[in-house]
């Protein structure tokens, strides 16, 4: 059997990490992380919330879903799904972000 059995201790640790992450993201949401640097404004609340969510999701994928112990094929499947999501977002927003750049004057 090529299968790896993850000990329960690992699951408990991950569970606590996830709970802490949830608490952290709620606390962070009430604090305003908007910074002004010269003339530019950086609104960091959403990036911080997303970073916490991505970290939590990564822990679930790696440990609860056993990807850390899985074959390369599973890694490829997971990353390719994310890659296609990036294609969907990147090319759609390639349209929306550049719409205002050019006007012919109508």
């Amino acid at each position, binding site marked *: 059997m090529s299968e790896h059995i993850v000990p329960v201790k690992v699951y408990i640790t991950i569970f606590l990490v996830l709970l802490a992450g949830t608490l952290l993201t*709620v606390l962070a949401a009430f604090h305003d*992380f908007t910074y002004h640097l010269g003339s530019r404004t950086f609104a960091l609340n959403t990036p911080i919330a997303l970073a916490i969510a991505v970290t939590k999701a990564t822990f679930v994928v790696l440990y609860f879903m056993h990807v850390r112990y899985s074959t390369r094929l599973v890694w490829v499947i997971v990353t390719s799904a994310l890659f296609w999501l990036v294609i969907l977002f990147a090319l759609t927003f390639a349209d*929306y972000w550049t719409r205002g750049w050019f006007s012919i004057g109508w």
Partner: protein
Amino acid sequence: MIESPAATEHIQAHPALQHHFENMEQQREAGTLGMWVFLVTEIMFFGGMFLAYTLYRSKFPADFASASNHLDITLGAVNTGVLILSSFTMATAVWSTQVGKRQTQILCLVLTLLLGLTFLGIKAVEYYDKYEDALVPGQLIPGRPFGPEVAQEGDHDRHKLHLLPGATVEHVQMFYWIYFAMTGMHALHMVIGAGLITFLIIFSVKGRYDPEYHSPVEVIGLYWHFVDIIWIFLFPLLYLLGRHFEH
């Protein structure tokens, strides 16, 4: 010497081995792979809605923040905890099947199911609140179209919509259809997951799963964790995006 592996292995084959697989290892591998490929389709399915969310949120930031602030953050956070705990019990169920502890396995599956139902119950309470406040978008509920009461300056009634500067009720509706579409689709996946776990419990009690054959528990576990991950993203994106504007 060429020997067909099938000829020798059918003698002591596991009763759960299907006829077209050579051995249990191949069957397990196919099952797990199949679920992962299915989860890829799920990622793309939810991806379309996340795309719509991103687009409209960047178009109407103040409206989205106002609408989000009306959601019940306590219930949302509690539900996140419930779902994470259910993911933990599901992972433990997989572990206890792998090592052959049947009592623990059944207990963990039942706990997972109960936690899943708790999540759905809390979600139903939240939906009812939104219905009361007439926040169900468009004409979705006949006789109760979208039309929340807007709070005036100094009015702290939590059933009224508190609009941030620049926000309009029309674009708040934008948020609410995304909210209902995404959480509704997530809840539908939870219902399907609860059905699958019920099915697992029935067969666990019958003693169908053992360390050699635990593929169904593992595969449905993968699905359950995936549904958890979707919520891990929905919670901050829907509930928390405008809280820092509140004070």
